[in-house]
């Protein structure tokens, strides 16, 4: 259901994010379990293969399958450094046009309390 609504690019971003968060090689089955949400094994495998073909992932044999990690080649590291430097530049100084759109800004103490309550409520809801 959710799978059909999910475009290929979106799924590839999720897979990449999942591997970057894991910090260790993951097999197709592990990525599938981690992402959840009723994704088919073949769908996850296709996304991993495509990312591998693009050079975004390394893979190593793990038993009868492959285990994948984000490619940490010099080019990727360079991208990381570039991203950080450009962001600093785009955020520094008074005279910025504000072209970056951040997911969450820094919180006020009041916001922090409200959000902590929200998460606590959610946990209680799951526990009940």
């Amino acid at each position: 259901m959710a799978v059909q609504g999910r475009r290929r690019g979106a799924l590839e971003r999720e897979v990449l994010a999942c591997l970057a968060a894991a910090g260790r090689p993951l097999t197709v089955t592990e990525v599938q379990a981690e992402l959840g949400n009723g994704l088919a094994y073949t769908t996850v495998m296709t996304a991993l293969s495509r990312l591998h073909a693009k050079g975004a992932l390394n893979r190593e044999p793990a038993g009868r399958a492959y285990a994948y990690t984000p490619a940490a080649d010099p080019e990727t590291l360079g991208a990381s450094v570039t991203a950080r430097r450009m962001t600093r530049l785009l955020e520094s100084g008074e005279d910025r046009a504000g072209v970056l759109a951040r997911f969450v800004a820094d919180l006020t103490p009041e916001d922090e309390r409200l959000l902590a309550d929200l998460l606590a409520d959610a946990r209680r809801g799951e526990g009940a």
Partner: protein
Amino acid sequence: MTIALCLPVLAGVLLFVGARPLADRLPPATAVVLLTAAMLVTALATGFVLSVLALFVLGQVPLVARLGHWSAAVIGHDLPVPAAVGILAGTVACVLLAAALRRATLSGRDLVLAAVACRRLGPSAAGLVVVDDDLPDAYALPGLGGRVVVSTAMLRALPAAERRVLLAHEQAHLAHRHHIYVQLAGLAAAADPLLRPAERAVRSAVERWADEVAAAEVGDRELAARALARAGLARAGARRAGAPAAAALAATDVGVAARARALLAGPPPRRRVLAGALGALVLAVSAATLVTAVDTQHRFEAAEHAYHAAR
């Protein structure tokens, strides 16, 4: 003609007072599009009216009238405003134009910088760049298709379902070209300081718009709200633990908690009447500007006729 001259400034005052309440009530996408349109039209019309007022005074200067082949007396006959107001208007128009040009330069520079950054990042897979960093952070970098940049700390702070919310939110900024609206709103606010609260409202509404797109994509508003809460708290926690402070991005009216609350409150109602009213304001200001333009042209034509008749 006096009403037509006043309407752009009146619209500025209306937006000064009403932008925030409008942005709170309208669906975010509607709010962004209509407010940005209203701001641009208002800023342009205000600049135009100020220039016209200055032109009336300038047109009465004997040397200018001789050069322009028109009658200074006819230009000055029965004007809606005294000369002093015209001089003031001209000065204000020059200052505001300079501010708008400066702002346009800043926007252009930063948009080019962002595009250069995207280019240097190369063909990153699916437009996602993961940065190894201890501060939970995620943002969209516009330009050349754009990139979503997320730090490893942010990825680790969220479970997979909430990461999906984050990625969908940032991708929505890029897909709907939110940076264009934000920059245009900034430009309008530079050209008409009455529009500064509206600029902040547009910035906030853009975040709410991306939240709504993300919530729709995962099909779960509570999940989207939890993702916001967890990401915000993770960032605050890292800050307390001494993560280096990045410069704050431009402030918005609506904090993370308010965004989460809006998600939990259910899908925003469409508010056709309110949207229609804002649309009507855009049309009214446009019409008033047209009236001013036509009236001004008539006045100068009459003055030219009088000049030639007198010779």
